[in-house]
């Protein structure tokens, strides 16, 4: 039996493994950034709904036999994000109902489309890998890798540039609006960033597990840290750590990438919960 380091060194020679790790790190960094916003603001429901929309979009892309489906999925998800935000803005309840309709609707229609038009011999395999991202991170084409890297860099830069605005709008939207922050635009920006993150994260963990990837690092960080900045930094680091570990474990043990990453996230969440209890939560 080969020792783990040898095995890793062997895998490291394959470009797809290196791509997977690089893209995995970038995607997990992005997805953690808006975790706090998603956990605490009404955007949480948008995030959940959008991941289902992204599934529907993937199904449509599959029907048209697109080899590179990311641009189409990105477009549909972004447009839905903007629309959902619009409906959600006026009344909470109406927004929730709209999300429920759209998300369950896209799941159903997506599966229906795949069933009716799929040319693939392994339909349930396809569906499963779209939902749980079983291997997609390891099968990315060069174009997809480039697109992922580009989008991730844009998301990170946008987040850094608008960091204080995002804090102000998330913490107290009324105050921000009353004092002249153009909250409408920043809400839109946040929604678009969330859409991009979801499309990215879908490559890593599949559409059903996106919320886990986005929310767990933030929840873990919030157990121990108490300021927005420390929580953001901590959840970014946690998220990167989890996806690195998750990808490596899945390569070594042959487990599905997405669920392995989320499992690692869950373990770290438990650890941080205990840590938070022990520290008594007086950290800043």
């Amino acid at each position: 039996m080969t020792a783990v380091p040898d095995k890793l060194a062997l895998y490291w020679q394959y470009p797809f493994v290196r791509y997977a790790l690089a893209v995995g790190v970038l995607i997990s960094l992005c997805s953690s950034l808006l975790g706090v916003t998603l956990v605490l603001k009404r955007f949480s429901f948008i995030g959940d709904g959008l991941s289902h929309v992204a599934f529907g979009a993937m199904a449509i892309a599959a029907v048209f036999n697109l080899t590179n489906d990311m641009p189409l999925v990105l477009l549909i998800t972004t447009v839905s994000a903007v629309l959902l935000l619009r409906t959600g803005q006026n009344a909470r309840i109406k927004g929730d109902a709209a999300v429920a309709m759209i998300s369950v609707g896209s799941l159903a229609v997506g599966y229906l489309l795949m069933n009716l038009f799929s040319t693939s011999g392994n339909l349930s395999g396809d569906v499963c890998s779209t939902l749980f991202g079983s291997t997609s991170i390891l099968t990315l084409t060069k174009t997809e890798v480039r697109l992922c890297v580009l989008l991730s860099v844009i998301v990170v830069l946008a987040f850094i540039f608008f960091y204080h605005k995002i804090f102000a709008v998330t913490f107290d939207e009324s105050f921000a609006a009353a004092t002249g922050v153009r909250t409408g635009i920043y809400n839109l920006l946040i929604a678009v960033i969330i859409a991009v993150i979801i499309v990215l994260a879908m490559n890593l963990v599949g559409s059903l597990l996106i919320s886990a990837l986005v929310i767990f690092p933030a929840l873990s960080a919030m157990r121990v840290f108490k300021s927005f900045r420390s929580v953001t930094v901590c959840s970014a680091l946690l998220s990167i750590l989890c996806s690195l570990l998750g990808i490596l474990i899945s390569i070594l043990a042959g487990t599905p990438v997405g669920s392995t990453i989320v499992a690692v996230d869950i373990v770290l969440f438990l650890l941080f919960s205990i840590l938070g209890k022990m520290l008594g939560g007086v950290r800043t």
Partner: protein
Amino acid sequence: MALITCQDLSLGYDGREIIRGLSFEVSRGDYLCIVGENGSGKSTLMRTVLGLQPPLGGLIRLGDGLSMREIGYLPQQTPIQRDFPASVWEVVLSGFEGSCGLRPFYSRAEKQRATSNIRSMGLEDLTRRCYRELSGGQQQRVLLARALCATDKLLFLDEPVSGLDPRVTTEMYRLIEQLNRENGITVIMISHDIAAALRYASHILHIGDTVFFGTRDAYLGSGISSLFTGGGDEQ
């Protein structure tokens, strides 16, 4: 010229009017108290004037060179922020966001002003603490420090003393009075504390079944205040 002029204002939600035909104006240096029963529409009025919701009719005009970016606001507490990880420092600094425009970072001058506002609210020791772990009164002072970062002209305060103990309440009123008198900040405050309103305010806006707007003395003379307090024991 008045800072804020409201003419024949109607407000409410989803086309349902709560108040109609309301007219008043606020000039530089005024201390306006808005009083009225629960649900009479005080917060709604404040939110409408702040542009957070559209008026159903009438006119709101900003004058005297006032821009929306120079207004400070202390909202009535919202439960949404309960779990939010944010330090006192971060919350106070966010008061500058409106005047930042697209600039991504806070300037040194802004950080100094935030520090001095934190000091004037007596919060120095809490700067690094988590906002949500403070007591209600401490949180209220943090939000007032934030409002002060947003303005040196005009403060909107929605029930600034609700949930504060008597000592801190007196302190809060003293602070607001000092801001009004010494720093020349115009104050518009919602309050259920009619005695304090009559002590500190220069003008009173009473909304509800009877509507009154005028100076404090005119209000005392009108006898509406005694209706509101149910006894008329203020002097």
